[in-house]
């Protein structure tokens, strides 16, 4: 049994540890300084101005970003934004830290059992106390939580009652992505979708500006149900693979484009893929689908089309006609594809060199007797009937 002295000693010990932790934590800083000093946490970031990359880096303090999903990608994303001195960070997750997460970055084994958002908030505040970090511990796909989520991003800006500047999706499932998509289409908030494949060797980020770029529901996964017997279902288990490398790279791509977007430098990628096996980074633009199932997406598309477009400065390339000094045989080059027939589906051309692969059939089958018929019965009656079976 421990006697009073032992306990006293333990308390002193813990007190000392606590004091040293407090001593190590830095104080808040009011103004970002570009002074080159070992003690200035922002000197290397402010140097971006001197190098001519970013104008007024300090604007980052007036930006608010929501990170949905604080797992392999989301935690590193939040870490990077915190170190960059983002003004406000709103975290969403309903999971707990597990030892099975330790092949990823950021979380440490002693945090196992804590909620991901609380564990992350603690570490992040210690790294940079200047960042205002809010945590939300719930599943955004349920009806009640979704309303909290809508409120949180609609009023989560630096200025009260203003929306967040950007939402970053770092979730690991279709349902949550669709929920973020629905919220951002409805509130007209720009967001980035990110993902790492189940086999851990590819990933992507996708910028979604409601109405201007394809939303997450515009191009549903091309699903093909196969004719296989249930007995032959895969049995190895659902545990997805993951690598800290791929997740770190995807988080890096995500935050890099977030910084470019928030601080207006460089070009923001609309879609950037990553294939780890061959180090291939495909890049493209995805335009919205006029027949998107999400009604808010269609509404945003109409609004976007009605808006006057910013004139993009097109650099004119001067094509000089090549004239050879002599051409005694009269040889000239004739293009072979000048007279090829052009695809007829120009109705809503998706972009140069592209054509639509699939036209949605018109929903016509509103028939058959097997449909549920709901006249004449009240919901209460049905509920009672179900209970009494």
């Amino acid at each position, binding site marked *: 049994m421990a006697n009073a002295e032992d306990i006293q000693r333990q308390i002193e010990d813990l007190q000392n540890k606590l004091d040293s932790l407090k001593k190590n934590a830095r104080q808040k800083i009011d103004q970002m300084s570009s002074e080159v000093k070992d003690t200035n946490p922002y000197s290397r970031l402010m140097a971006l101005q001197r190098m001519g990359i970013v104008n007024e880096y300090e604007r980052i303090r007036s930006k608010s970003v929501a990170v949905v999903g604080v797992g392999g990608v989301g935690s590193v994303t939040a870490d990077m934004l915190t170190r960059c001195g983002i003004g406000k960070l709103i975290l969403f997750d309903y999971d707990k830290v597990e030892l099975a997460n330790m092949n990823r970055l950021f979380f440490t084994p002693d945090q196992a059992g804590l909620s991901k958002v609380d564990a992350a908030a603690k570490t992040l505040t210690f790294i940079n106390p200047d960042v205002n970090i809010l945590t939300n511990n719930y599943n955004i*796909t349920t009806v009640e939580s979704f309303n909290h989520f809508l409120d949180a991003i609609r009023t989560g800006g630096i200025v009260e009652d203003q929306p967040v500047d950007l939402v970053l999706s770092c979730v690991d499932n279709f349902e949550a992505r669709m929920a973020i998509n629905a919220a951002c289409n409805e509130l007209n908030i720009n967001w980035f979708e990110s993902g790492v494949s189940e086999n851990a060797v590819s990933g992507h980020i996708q910028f979604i500006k409601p109405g201007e770029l394809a939303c997450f529901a515009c191009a549903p996964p091309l*699903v093909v*149900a196969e004719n296989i017997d249930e007995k032959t*279902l895969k*049995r190895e*288990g659902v545990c997805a693979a993951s690598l800290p490398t791929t997740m770190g790279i995807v988080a890096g791509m995500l935050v890099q484009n977030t910084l470019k977007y928030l601080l207006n430098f460089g070009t923001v990628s609309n879609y950037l893929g990553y294939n780890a096996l061959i180090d291939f980074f495909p890049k493209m633009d995805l335009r919205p689908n006029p027949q998107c199932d999400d009604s808010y997406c269609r509404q945003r598309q109409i609004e976007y089309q009605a808006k006057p477009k910013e004139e993009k400065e097109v650099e004119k390339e001067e094509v000089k006609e090549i004239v050879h000094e002599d051409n005694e045989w009269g040889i000239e080059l004739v293009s072979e594809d000048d007279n090829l027939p052009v695809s007829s589906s120009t109705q809503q051309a998706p972009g140069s060199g592209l054509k639509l692969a699939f036209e949605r059939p018109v929903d016509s089958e509103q028939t058959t007797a097997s*449909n*549920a018929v709901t006249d004449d019965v009240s919901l209460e009656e049905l509920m009672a009937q179900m209970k009494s079976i």
Partner: protein
Amino acid sequence: MVDANTKKTLQNIPLLQTRASPRDKDLWVQRLKEEYQALIKYVQNNKASDSDWFRLESNKEGTRWFGKCWYIHNLLKYEFDVEFDIPVTYPATAPEIALPELDGKTAKMYRGGKICLTDHFKPLWARNVPKFGIAHAMALGLAPWMAVEIPDLIDKGIIEYKEKGTQ
């Protein structure tokens, strides 16, 4: 995975018509009525063909569902609690059916005991929005999952038969 038997089961479940999520006030009530009618028909069919295997009920709003499902293996009945929420993006995304007491007992499960539906069910669901409802999710999602997983879990000794009344 749709064998002849499942096909027949499926044909006898009424299809739904209303595309509505719990956020669509009145339309959702309409959808909910269709859900209940399809479920009632499905349970009646099951009883008629002596293959009754679940009971479900919902809260007043129809957003949260709970009940029991059971599986007969070697003449013994294994019963489990079943529950799920209707997601805000329903019916574009299917409900994530959970058997909480099996959480951590099989790899074919996500956190909280949500059964894995990715391979065998979600493609089917996606192609049948909004015609499929909860009854279809039970028939094509949970039923085949249990048919594969439960015997395996019993064989491995991970779940054991409980006498009635001892639960």
